[in-house]
């Protein structure tokens, strides 16, 4: 469950828009990693953020039909970073945001599982006619604040 957080001019916000294509996912994850490094997340936490963002963008590219771009927004809070990944695909499938059970290994379906495992808070909002918004939050470790 996503905790309600203040939004406004006093909350620093960094936004990047990428074409909804595989070759641009690296830019999304590197942007988030750069912001996280400035916030003094440690190396492991930055790696978690990079992977979660990449998985979210990959999911959008593979499943959001007719979406030309993905918008990645980072909001900087005292206790961590909120990352919002928005696509504009139509007809989003419920299967897409379901975290799968681990069991017999199979190709695909691990992305959402990883996002939920690596981030502290994760929430999907699916609008069938306007796309999907994934909001996630990574807390700064106590030693990093």
């Amino acid at each position, binding site marked *: 469950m996503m905790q309600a957080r203040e939004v406004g001019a006093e909350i620093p916000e960094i936004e990047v828009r990428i074409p909804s294509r*595989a*070759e*641009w*996912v*690296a*830019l999304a994850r*590197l942007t988030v990693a750069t912001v996280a490094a400035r916030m003094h997340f440690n190396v*492991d936490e930055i*790696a978690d953020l*990079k*992977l979660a963002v*990449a*998985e979210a*963008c*990959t999911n959008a*590219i*593979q499943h959001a039909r007719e979406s030309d771009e993905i918008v990645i927004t980072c909001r900087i809070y005292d206790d961590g970073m909120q990352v919002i990944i928005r696509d504009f695909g139509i007809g989003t499938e419920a299967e897409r945001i379901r975290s799968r059970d*681990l*069991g017999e*290994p*199979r*190709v*695909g*379906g*691990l*992305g959402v*599982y*990883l996002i939920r*495992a*690596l981030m502290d808070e994760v929430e999907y909002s699916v609008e069938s006619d306007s796309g999907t918004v994934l909001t996630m939050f990574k807390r700064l470790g106590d030693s990093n604040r």
Partner: protein
Amino acid sequence: MARVDINMQVRSANGSIAVVSLDGEIDVYTSPKVKDFIGKLIDKGTYTFAIDMQNVRYIDSTGLGVLIGGLKRVREHGGAVTLVSTNPQTRKIFDITGLIKVFDIYDSVDEAVDALK
């Protein structure tokens, strides 16, 4: 430019064992290249792989999917796949996803090859 790439090489160890060395980042952009590279080796009759990921700086679920797909294909022919990685983040991802129980991961190529003999 945000474009990433992956370098792939293969050499033979002990005849039927292929040592595939991956260098770079494995994500949604590069994983099709890895899939194609390994797939062509399988098509040519190689079913036993030691995949050296020591120089893989990043891997996501698409990369894991390629490894799982390759493993399934070689198992159909009685083959096997071992991995080499000392990267803590890579090992963490295998751990979180439970794939640590599916793949044997070694610290060196020699160990990974020996395990296949």
